[in-house]
């Protein structure tokens, strides 16, 4: 709507308010764009000295990365090299070696599992498995890391690596349970649930008419799935793969626990030993070395690693958009097909496979095997955590503060971490919710100009793909600027620490934002136009319509996004450890009652679990299990809440909502 400037003065009050609303929401969207740009630019600037001193050799190999990092930490340059001397290849190689096989394994398993769930699984099995997989997708990575380092790594160490094998390479590298295989296996289990969830949705969205049409031509179930369903779902599976790759690439905490943490490039020519050699992926390195962020050269190097991750994540996002575009295109006529009434074929009845060709029957049984395997893995994780958690959980753990002591009896409980988790979750959500809803509203309702709206959408999607460890070092950099000192504390030498509940919460809000935006936007898009039109027809302005009609009717959608975001915040470890710092007890700063706590530092459940894990200083597996169990219960509760919110809509509203397919 273009109005001449001469008319602008005489606009009615309501219209002016409308304009203001659009302006404010648009400004929010612009701010997010600015934030992304700021992140890319600051990380690159901070990383520049490392790149400029090493040139393209930064990516090459040469020497031992661990030694190079230690030299920076101790500020004693290696003989004949500058302090910045760094050759990242062993880490890049380690990242590739963990990410690529994990994604490939997860891709095969998730596709088979998704086919099993949509086509072959008996209904009771599906009804149990689907929510559990959604739960597993929300399990914090620290929990996977804990299971890996405490249960799987020792088992691999004892049963798969012989002493002879250890002795044979003892001069070069020490083999133990934390190695390439452990890292890859846990990583693939970690990314599996999200891939299964997306692929299952995509396969379930394949129009029944296509499957029916294929059946009517005398083509059996498996071939129909193979030729028609998978073909249709291919772009969605690709998008899921991209998402999972981004997660695997940015995974820091879990890999820091189970990958061995030794900057060693495993050599495929070593035969079987190759699989048991330790690796040191990029993201895990940032996490492990984060205490050295105050040391100039090390910080520059870590930001350089962060920049590499950021650029890779962005490139992956681009690939994801391409896949998504393909998916939308191929489903456009399908959506039209699906909107028409068809024969109610909900789930096909069981069919004998006796007449199928051998290959088809093999695939069919493979699907079943995968489905049962998935059930077993799921049950194993859930039961393991249940048994460990219940056996180590005591009431006193909830009531006492942690104390830094190596003695089990004296090290206290996790009262402070629970409170810390609560504080962080509240701060993060309070910041992210209004901004997220505002941006989603602008993107969905105003979208003017369209190119800008598309850019904002892409930026939000990119934000969702940024590894949290990169977000953490970026936040620390921003919040340790002098003018933001009021958010945290001043160190003795007058510099700003950048560590506080406020700053960590602000960093967390960036994690939650994409989820809130996506959920709100989706809900707004599903509202029928007649709802808007009926409000306009009563003479209401757009802003009033949004505030009084649209937003109230998508309350469940907003709530879903907020709760999902909260789950993401609660489960994150990297930001807590890096931005909130290593203090176990909540330590206030300043005199004001509430603000002092917020400006102070402390811990959350995730950082507590890490502290009590073998890699942390506490090293008390029992307390780590107990805390991880509590963490899992909180995630489970949030999950149940999401399910309840998104399915238990009031009956009255269901009439207004377009039927969800």
């Amino acid at each position, binding site marked *: 709507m273009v109005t001449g400037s001469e008319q602008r003065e005489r606009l009615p009050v309501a219209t002016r308010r409308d304009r203001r609303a659009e302006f404010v929401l648009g400004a929010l969207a612009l701010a997010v764009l600015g934030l992304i740009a700021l992140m890319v630019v600051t990380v690159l600037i901070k990383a520049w000295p490392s790149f400029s001193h090493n040139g393209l050799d930064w990516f090459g190999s040469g020497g031992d990365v661990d030694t190079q990092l230690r030299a920076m930490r101790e500020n004693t340059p290696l003989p004949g090299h500058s302090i910045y001397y760094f050759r990242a290849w062993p880490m890049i190689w380690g990242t590739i070696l963990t990410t690529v096989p994990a994604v490939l394994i997860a891709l095969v398993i998730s596709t088979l599992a998704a086919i099993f769930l949509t086509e072959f699984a008996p209904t009771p099995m599906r009804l149990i498995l689907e929510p559990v997989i959604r739960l597993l997708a929300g399990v914090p990575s620290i929990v996977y890391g804990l299971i890996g380092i405490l249960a799987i790594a020792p088992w691999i160490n004892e049963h798969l690596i012989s002493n002879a094998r250890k002795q044979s390479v003892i001069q070069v590298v020490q083999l133990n349970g934390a190695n390439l295989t452990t890292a890859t296996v846990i990583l693939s289990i970690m990314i599996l649930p999200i891939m299964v969830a997306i692929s299952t949705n995509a396969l379930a969205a394949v*129009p029944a*008419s*296509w499957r*029916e*049409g*294929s*059946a*009517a*031509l*005398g*083509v*059996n179930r498996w*071939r129909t799935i193979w*030729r*028609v369903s998978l*073909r*249709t779902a291919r772009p969605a599976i690709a998008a899921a793969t991209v998402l999972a790759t981004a997660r695997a690439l940015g995974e820091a905490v879990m890999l820091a626990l189970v990958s061995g943490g030794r900057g060693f490039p495993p050599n495929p020519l070593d035969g079987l030993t190759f699989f048991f050699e330790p690796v040191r992926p990029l993201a895990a390195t940032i996490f492990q070395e984060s205490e050295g962020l105050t040391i100039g050269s090390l910080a520059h190097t870590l930001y350089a690693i962060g920049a590499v991750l950021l650029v890779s994540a962005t490139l992956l996002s681009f690939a994801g958009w391409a896949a998504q575009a393909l998916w939308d295109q*191929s489903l*456009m*006529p*399908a959506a039209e*097909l699906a909107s*028409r009434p*068809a*024969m*109610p*074929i*909900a*789930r*096909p*009845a069981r*069919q004998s496979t006796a*007449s*199928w*060709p051998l290959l088809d029957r093999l695939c069919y049984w493979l699907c079943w095997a995968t489905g049962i395997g998935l059930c077993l893995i799921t049950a194993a994780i859930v039961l393991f955590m249940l048994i460990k958690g219940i056996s180590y959980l005591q009431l006193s753990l909830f009531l006492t503060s942690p104390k830094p002591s190596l003695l089990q009896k004296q090290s206290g409980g996790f009262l402070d971490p629970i409170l810390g988790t609560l504080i962080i979750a509240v701060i993060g959500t309070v910041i992210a919710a209004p901004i997220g809803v505002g941006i989603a509203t602008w993107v969905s309702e105003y979208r003017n100009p369209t190119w800008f709206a598309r850019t904002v959408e892409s930026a939000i999607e990119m934000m969702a793909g940024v590894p949290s460890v990169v977000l953490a070092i970026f936040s620390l950099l921003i919040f340790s600027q002098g003018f933001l000192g009021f958010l945290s504390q001043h160190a003795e030498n007058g510099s700003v620490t950048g560590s506080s509940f406020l700053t960590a919460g602000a960093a967390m809000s960036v994690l939650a934002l994409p989820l809130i935006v996506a959920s709100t936007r989706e809900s707004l898009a599903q509202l029928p136009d007649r709802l808007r039109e009926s409000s306009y027809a009563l003479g209401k302005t757009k802003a009033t319509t949004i505030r009084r009609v649209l937003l109230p009717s998508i309350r469940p959608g907003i709530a879903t996004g907020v709760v999902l975001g909260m789950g993401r915040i609660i489960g994150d470890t990297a930001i807590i450890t890096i931005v909130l710092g290593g203090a176990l007890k909540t330590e206030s700063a300043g005199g004001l009652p509430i603000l002092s706590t917020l400006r102070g530092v402390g811990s959350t459940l995730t950082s507590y679990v890490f502290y009590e894990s073998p890699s942390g200083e506490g090293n008390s597996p029992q307390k780590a299990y107990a805390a991880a169990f509590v963490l899992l219960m909180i995630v489970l509760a949030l999950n149940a809440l999401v399910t309840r919110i998104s399915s238990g809509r009031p009956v009255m509203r269901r009439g207004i909502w377009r039927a969800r397919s």
Partner: protein
Amino acid sequence: MDPLMPPPVRRIVVDRDPRVVAPRPRGNGVVADGLALAAVRERPSRAPGALVRERMRLESLWLAYGENWVVRDVSLQVRQGEVLALIGASGSGKTTLLRSLNRLTEITTGAARAGQITLDGTDIHALEVNDLRRRVSMVFQQPNPFPMSIFDNVAYALTEDPRSGRRRRRGAEIQHAVSDALRRAGLYEEVAGDLDRSALRLSGGQQQRLCIARALAANPEVLLLDEPCSALDPISTATIEDLIVELRESVAIVIVTHNLQQAFRVADHVAFMHLGELVEYGPAEQVFDNPRERRTRDYVSGAFG
């Protein structure tokens, strides 16, 4: 009568001999466009001496979804060389009956059946289901081409035929079969230039003819059509009706239709179903011009449905 229901638009005249009258072109009778052309086409009469032979036989067939019997005690024959039209109001069980002919009802959970269906004398439940469906193929109400190229769509049934092993996609034999099927479906001229185009980019009428070509490519013995024209415009409908009439020599055709005029134009035999029962079954002339049953007369005269 329900007081809340509006009165019927058409007056019911039952005293006089009811007749379906094809609308005549208005004005001076000059056929102006395809639309009028489609409306005034006469019912094609069968060539004298054409071979008519029974392919399928239904004997006291009962079909149910759960507790609900949707087809009750239906017996009829499907003959090659003829078009059999199933007519009747919504919910009369026509589509369910049609789907039971190639056991597609089995896809729906809770579907039950009593009675017998035979294909060339063999009970269809004794046949392997995918074999049966290759012999008795089906075209649906909504055109449902797969999200592949036109070529791949038509070649689908051929490349997926396990009897001949899965053949290579571009074998000369398959190419020939594909173009032949497209020709029989009357689509070849329109799409010959670009068989690699996505089938989803075709128009609705072309998509439906593609679906017919896809079914024909596997050389089925019986072709089931479930309201194939209900989503199409009159010109595409006319094309497909011509096609049906042409095909009946080589394939036994069963068509479900809501459209009485369409049944009148294409069918040789008509079965009128009401609430799951077969009310009347006989040659089209008899059912339309001289129905034995009063319900049939009401229906074909437009009293309900």
